[in-house]
């Protein structure tokens, strides 16, 4: 039960203030500014308690969103709401910035009225919201009474995320598997921790009220099928491919009862773009890159760094946007870099050497070497040697997830699964991908 919601700019000026409950006074606005935004020491915790009032905040670029409550509220719910709120705003007016918020403040208040009622989160599905909160105010006047009443029944109905009577000439469906790999590796190449967090994002342009069924190489499903089919060969070949999913969450359209009983994912999709599911895996991760660091201290005033990166995937695939960030000591006074491929530069403002490579095929290796000059200081503290981090994008799913099928059934309209054009894409990105040196 959120008592109020405030949006501040980086200076702590209030851009949006919406209070839902009487127990939140106006001084709460100032309390957050004084104790968090202007705090002498940076506040790290996303939850702050000030005078029996809890403040939950998220930051998007320079904008602070803070939800306030006096009650013992479920913090996860509040944060989920705040993230949703950010998504909704992005869907309406793009990037969340001070400029955009100021330009759209009427819209934001309208949205806040709709998605929170007396502090209880309501429908926050962008697609549904867009049917009755439009940016072109005039257009909504042309809606007929029938249409308006239809909106009401749809929003309050069983399937609140999709309205009836959608028609497309071409029934199309886009499916993206987006994953981010997180890794911490020791200098000797030992994996200290690794996990993949992934999302399945869909864009559907389907007519009517289609029923969809989504299948992937989930280990439990495959094993079950293997047993049911009793065909050893099929079991073996598919068993190798299957992955163990540690946990997953679904979009509200997925029928959870069916997932619980049969572990099959079936749903009536919302129109447009949405996130079907989120998941996490920790086993058998394909690490797309290996970083081999070599740091040598030559006396007190010099440091030699050599870093080799090896790509570890099919040679036919191309990794993109590769960026290696090599931290430099705080007393660096000059850097010389030599690299075979890509561009490398010492960025003083970030205390790091940044090495960028546009493209790199699989099973290749590349190397950079740098000489770092140091200024002797009277500080006895040794350099902490922060890990080398890396960014990249690869066209496959590092968790090994494969989409097996996506079937569409629409009984009332006369198109079948074969008529739907389906597109599948895998993108693997780096999360926190670090190697200690």
């Amino acid at each position, binding site marked *: 039960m959120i008592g109020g919601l405030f949006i501040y700019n*980086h200076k702590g000026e209030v851009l949006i203030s919406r209070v839902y409950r009487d127990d939140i006074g106006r001084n709460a606005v100032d309390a957050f500014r004084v104790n968090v935004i202007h705090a002498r020491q*940076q506040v790290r915790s996303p939850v702050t308690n000030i005078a029996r009032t809890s403040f939950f905040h998220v930051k998007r670029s*320079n904008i602070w969103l803070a939800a306030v409550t006096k009650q013992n509220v479920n913090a996860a719910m509040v944060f989920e709401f705040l993230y949703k709120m950010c998504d909704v705003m992005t869907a309406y007016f793009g990037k969340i910035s001070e400029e955009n918020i100021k330009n759209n403040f009427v819209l934001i208040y309208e949205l806040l009225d709709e998605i929170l009622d007396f502090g209880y989160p309501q429908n926050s599905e962008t697609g549904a919201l867009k049917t009755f909160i439009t940016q072109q105010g005039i257009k909504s006047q042309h809606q007929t009474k029938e249409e308006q009443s239809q909106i009401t029944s749809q929003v309050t109905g069983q399937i609140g995320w999709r309205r009836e009577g959608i028609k497309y000439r071409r029934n199309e469906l886009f499916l993206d598997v987006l994953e981010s790999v997180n890794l911490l590796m020791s200098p000797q190449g030992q994996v200290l921790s690794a996990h993949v967090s992934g999302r399945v994002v869909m864009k559907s342009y389907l007519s009517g009220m289609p029923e969809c069924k989504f299948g992937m190489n989930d280990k439990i499903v495959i094993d079950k099928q293997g047993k049911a089919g009793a065909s050893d060969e099929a079991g073996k070949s598919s068993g190798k491919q299957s992955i163990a999913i540690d946990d997953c969450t679904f979009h509200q359209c997925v029928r959870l009862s069916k997932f619980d009983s049969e572990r099959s994912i079936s749903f009536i999709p919302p129109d447009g773009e949405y996130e079907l599911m989120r998941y996490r895996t920790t086993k058998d991760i394909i690490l797309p890159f290996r970083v081999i660091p070599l740091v040598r201290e030559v006396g007190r005033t010099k440091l030699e760094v050599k870093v080799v990166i090896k790509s570890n995937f099919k040679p036919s695939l191309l990794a993109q946007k590769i960026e290696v960030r090599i931290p430099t000591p*705080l*007393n*660096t*006074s*000059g850097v010389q870099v030599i690299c075979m491929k890509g561009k490398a530069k010492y960025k*003083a*403002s*970030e*205390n790091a050497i940044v090495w960028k490579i546009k493209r790199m095929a699989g099973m290749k290796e590349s190397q950079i070497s740098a000489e770092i*000059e140091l*200024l*002797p*200081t*009277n*500080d006895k503290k040794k350099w902490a040697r922060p890990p080398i981090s890396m960014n990249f994008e690869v066209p496959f799913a590092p968790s090994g997830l494969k989409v097996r099928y996506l079937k569409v059934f629409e009984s009332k309209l006369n198109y079948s699964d074969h008529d739907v054009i389906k597109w599948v894409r895998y993108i693997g990105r780096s999360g926190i991908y670090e190697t200690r040196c």
Partner: protein
Amino acid sequence: MPAVSKGDGMRGLAVFISDIRNCKSKEAEIKRINKELANIRSKFKGDKALDGYSKKKYVCKLLFIFLLGHDIDFGHMEAVNLLSSNKYTEKQIGYLFISVLVNSNSELIRLINNAIKNDLSSRNPTFMCLALHCIANVGSREMAEAFAGEIPRILVAGDTMDSVKQSAALCLLRLYKTSPDLVLMGEWTSRVVHLLNDQHMGVVTAAISLITCLSQKNPDEFKTCVSLAVSRLSRIVSSASTDLQDYTYYFVPAPWLSCKLLRLLQCYPPPEDGAVKGRLVECLETILNKAQEPPKSKKVQHSNAKNAILFEAIALIIHYDSEPNLLVRACNQLGQFLQHRETNLRYLALESMCTLASSEFSHEAVKTHIETVINALKTERDVSVRQRAADLLYAMCDRSNAKQIVAEMLSYLETADYSIREEMVLKVAILAEKYAVDYSWYVDTILNLIRIAGDYVSEEVWYRVIQIVINRDDVQGYAAKTVFEALQAPACHENMVKVGGYILGEFGNLIAGDPRSSPLVQFNLLHSKFHLCSVPTRALLLSAYIKFINLFPETKSTIQEVLRCDSQIRNSDVELQQRAVEYLKLSSIASTDVLATVLEEMPPFPERESSILAKLKKKKGPGAVSAGELEEGKREGGEVNGAERPGDNAAIASTPSPSADLLGLRSAAPVSAAPVSAGSLLVDVFSEAGPAASTAGVNDDGFLSCSSALSSAPPSVVSEDPAPPLPESDELLNKFVCKNNGVLFENQLLQIGIKSEYRQNLGRMYLFYGNKTSVQFVSFSTTLNVQLKPVDPLVEGGAQVQQVINIECLSDFSDAPLLNIKFRYGGALQNLSLKLPVTINKFFQPTEMSSHDFFQRWKQLSQPQQEAQKIFKANHPMDTEVLKAKLLGLGTALLDNVDPNPENFVCAGVIQTKAQQIGCLLRLEPNAQAQMYRLTLRSSKDTVAKRLCELLSEQF
């Protein structure tokens, strides 16, 4: 300067600062700073040497970054280089960096000191000033070590510029404050004092701060400054406002200097030289006169400066306290401020008047302002001023106006601020007691006090009223009547019920004649309050009831009924239940005579310092109530309570816990031993009554417990005497016969550890006193019945202090020295005595000898008085190894293969005393079957053998 062309403004710095200011977020700022730091690093690292300007610019940037809260770990060397530049701005930035960033243990300190030294000897006044400022800003011990000798020379040198002298004086003051031991004025003293005669007012102002500080430490050396200060002051005071030009501040000549001079004079007693004194008095009069003159300006600065001097002068007059004329004038002038518009002035006037009121000369003068002060108390808006007004009323109170002031304070109490209520209550209580002529007035006042501000009436206040009522026969009847009336109010405060219960229980018979306050009415009145009270009050009321049974036998059945009811006799609170059971039994079993003895009227309380005054003192710290006042309080209290009554120890001892507080006594006086007839009588009564007997002395309100009291009246409870040694101290002593280190004593407050070592007739003992509480012990002292080095009088909470005792054994002895420890813990005096574990055997020197020698000597010591033998049962299991260890711990040599029986132990040793050496032989024969030992000791001195035998027999 040539730098001007290049722009002394340091454009790069300005750009950098504006960049930082324009950063939109913390991250952006950090990025910008990182970039700048990298830039500076590469510049400093760069091979080509930087010119002074860029060095200055970068050092300045570093300084700015540091002030933003980032760590700076380089650039120190560049800053030090700047010091040797001969451009002012560069040198200044260098010094600035160093005083902000260089910590004292840096290795650069030698370079810095060198640069400072160069500047000090440079003869360039601006450079000298910069160096002096740097020394003062760093102010570390190293700086003091390096320059404490140099600076006085600069200060008094004839050719030093005035501005440098000023800086030198203040720099020296700073060094003196950090390390007074290093700044030795010795030879310079007189020349420093003569700085007061300096032409330049700035130098005088700076020097006077230094002299004030120095003269506080060693007033005698700087005595000569008094006459100089007086003449200087008179010159300033008598000067026209235009004479001093630069040092005239809004028409007031040199106000700061005047204040400082007056403050310096406050360090000394009035000058003895008549001329000087005359001149000073003249000065003070002039100041008072000038204050009366119409203001020369309407600006607030003018009046502030004038008043500052006036208040300082008045403070000096009060300090001297010898000029009645001036005191009265001061008082009158303060009186004008009492109604001034400025709140601060009113505050200061009230505060100064408080001190004036304590002077005998001005007391009367202060009293004339009573109406204004009372008015201030009522109408003042600022609470701190009201507080001062209350203080002043308290201070000006005497016998003549006590009634008025107490009445005013009482009426004010109803609306008083919560924060000062408790203090007000205490003050009213003290004044009422101190100046009470008529005790019925006193009783009325205190009861009123409880009625108006019951919550703020601390225990001490109502304890005191009871003490006084009990000690004064003439008010008892009146008190009983008033209390009875007060209790009739439908809602009365619990403290009122307590006082009522106590007084009616004692003196209810005095008003029982009146049918309106017949015994039963009294009882019903008290009992109607019973259920609304807390447990301690109920306990007190129960005691009052049993007293009623004694006073009015006709109420016996009613009261027994009440005591017998389940809510008493089965109360979940142990104390209440116990009282109910005991009183019920007592009332039903004991005969009237016994009852009358047991429940006799309380004996009068002994004389002592008023506990309320002690409380006020504790609350406000020693400054608030002057010592003289306390003396007076004591004296007055003495008058109130009549002559001293010597034989009242019983009453003291009769009051454990809370009422021990009442008497200001919380000694560790052991309540034991010394049975007296009445006590045993009571015990008899109870033993008839059955199991309740064992619970005799538990009543803790000190009201009824005269019974247990009588049974336990050790005469030495007067807390200043050393307490008798703890009963267990002998046992403690025995623990240490065979060992030298360990914990000697431990209770909830204190732990005493011991470490000791002995060689020949000498020994050294370390005593560790550990404070186990979180509160400090004050006036901690230890005495030995021999002499002892004093120990640190404060023991902080949780801390430990150490004491070393050197011991020399002059001749043999049998009693261990007594150690007496006294300290105050939370106001209560703690007193305990312990036996120090020094026994004769500590001075043993082991002697190795063969079997033959041993038996030869054994035979030589065959006279009966030389032998001491004891046969005793084993207290501990017979373990050979343990026995051996113990015998070695004793200090003797354990001789093997001497005794034909290997089970037996044989030891030999010489006790070293200063006078003589005493040989000792020992034989211990264990009998494992019977679990018995036979211990035989032979010694050339009979007392030693006996003592050792006693000591050892406890060990096995």
